[in-house]
């Protein structure tokens, strides 16, 4: 793949209306970063351009004939995960906003109708162009979660950080530069904080401060960050052949009530990387992979965002299929459990794996 030019970021504009494309081109030409702007009159043309050229940002209209903007964004999020995406719409509809964010777009923006709105729109685009595209936490790509916490604490911020890692969600409460509480998956305080810090990647967003939140963490944030870093280092040195997280997860899995088997499969491979509790793991692995591939193949046509989880409920056992990082998990549960219990405990399994 060609290297992206750092001097002038490249923007791809997608809209079926040539007049609007020209107008956007002029508007975006005013950005301080002086981007190079390329236009596409359809989703298909945009796809073709993305295959042959590098872009840092794509601005896509939602309402287009044949392939609509949600379908385009759905494909682009999968094929070009590093590309920044902006959904532009004149449709004032919460459903489309939710769906666009569920697809992972960076910005959903109603088409600007005043000079002030245009100014704000351009500021947002400039901000998106300024962000690096390396791994880490989306929303501040070049920063690790540790960096983000340090940044907020050092600047004496008051806010709530909501962090999402796959199906897992955690919150950190920061009040006047002090970390006062953390919460994830039934845990609170320091254990929750260490759990969240063990996640390697994810998304984060800032929520308004909650000054009334009772303080559950009394240690200074830098001490806690140090403890987490040490714990992670120790975890890494103890890795077995099963791969990241496997030894700790395997030990923890046996303590989870109702679990029958666990398979961890590399994408597209039926031979499990981890197989516990099953004699014929290949057969189950093949079914899991085929089922996930089949439902993933519907993602783009539905425009409903990425596949998150499949729960298969049966009289002999229940099975949950879910993607975590570069692995597909297939976890079997006793049939006596109800779907709510399975769902809750599945989060525990994934949390163990994320450690």
């Amino acid at each position, binding site marked *: 793949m060609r290297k992206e030019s750092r001097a002038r970021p490249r923007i791809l504009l997608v809209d079926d209306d040539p007049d609007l494309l020209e107008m956007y081109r002029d508007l975006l030409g005013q950005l301080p970063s002086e981007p190079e702007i390329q236009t596409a009159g359809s989703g298909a043309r945009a796809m073709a351009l993305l295959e042959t050229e590098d872009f840092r940002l794509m601005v896509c*209209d939602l309402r287009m004939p044949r392939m609509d903007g949600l379908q385009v964004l759905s494909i682009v999020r999968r094929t070009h995960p590093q590309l920044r995406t902006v959904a532009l719409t004149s449709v004032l509809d919460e459903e489309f906003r939710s769906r666009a964010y569920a697809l992972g777009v960076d910005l959903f923006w109603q088409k600007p109708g005043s000079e002030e709105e245009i100014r704000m729109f351009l500021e947002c685009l400039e901000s998106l162009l300024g962000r690096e595209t390396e791994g880490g936490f989306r929303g501040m790509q070049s920063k690790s979660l540790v960096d983000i916490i340090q940044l907020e604490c050092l600047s004496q911020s008051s806010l709530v950080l909501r962090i999402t890692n796959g199906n897992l969600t955690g919150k950190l409460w920061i009040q006047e530069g002090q970390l006062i509480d953390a919460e994830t998956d039934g845990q609170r305080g320091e254990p929750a904080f260490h759990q969240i810090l063990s996640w390697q990647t994810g998304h984060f967003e800032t929520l308004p401060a909650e000054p009334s939140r009772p303080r559950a963490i009394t240690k200074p944030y830098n001490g806690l960050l140090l403890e987490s870093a040490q714990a992670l280092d120790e975890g890494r040195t103890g890795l077995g052949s099963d791969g990241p997280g496997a030894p700790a997860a395997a030990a923890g899995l046996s303590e989870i009530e109702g679990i029958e088997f666990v398979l961890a499969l590399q994408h597209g491979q039926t031979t499990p990387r981890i197989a516990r509790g099953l004699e014929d793991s290949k057969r*189950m692995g093949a079914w899991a992979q085929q089922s996930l591939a*089949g439902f993933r193949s519907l993602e783009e*046509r539905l*425009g*409903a*965002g990425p596949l998150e989880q499949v729960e298969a409920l049966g009289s002999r056992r229940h099975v949950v299929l879910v993607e975590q990082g570069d692995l597909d998990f297939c976890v079997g549960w006793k049939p006596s459990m109800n779907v709510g219990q399975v769902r809750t405990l599945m989060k525990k399994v994934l949390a163990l794996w994320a450690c």
Partner: protein
Amino acid sequence: MGLLRLFEKPAPTLLRLPSGSFTVDCRGVLLIDTLPSTFPRALLCEIAQQVLKVFREAASAQLPLAELNIRYASLKITACELRGGALVFLAPLGLAQEQPRISDCPTRAVRA
């Protein structure tokens, strides 16, 4: 500013995520549905075929299934096995919306 009104073009409508249900027989033929007519029937058939395939392959892997919950970021599909066919529910998910589970309904049809 008249120029800015250019932003408000008439444009094709976006496909809304459907809310409703449909039933298919064991060959995937659509028998009945409560979904809006704007939702493409071809896409319904694709969903049905995929669901039936998963049910069939699970059965041949000694894993008879009664229900599938397939969760996308903004759509939940719930499929109940129905004598080789399926009853399929589609429900859009809002950001903070949790759909009721078919498994919690006392009338759920479960076949061994």
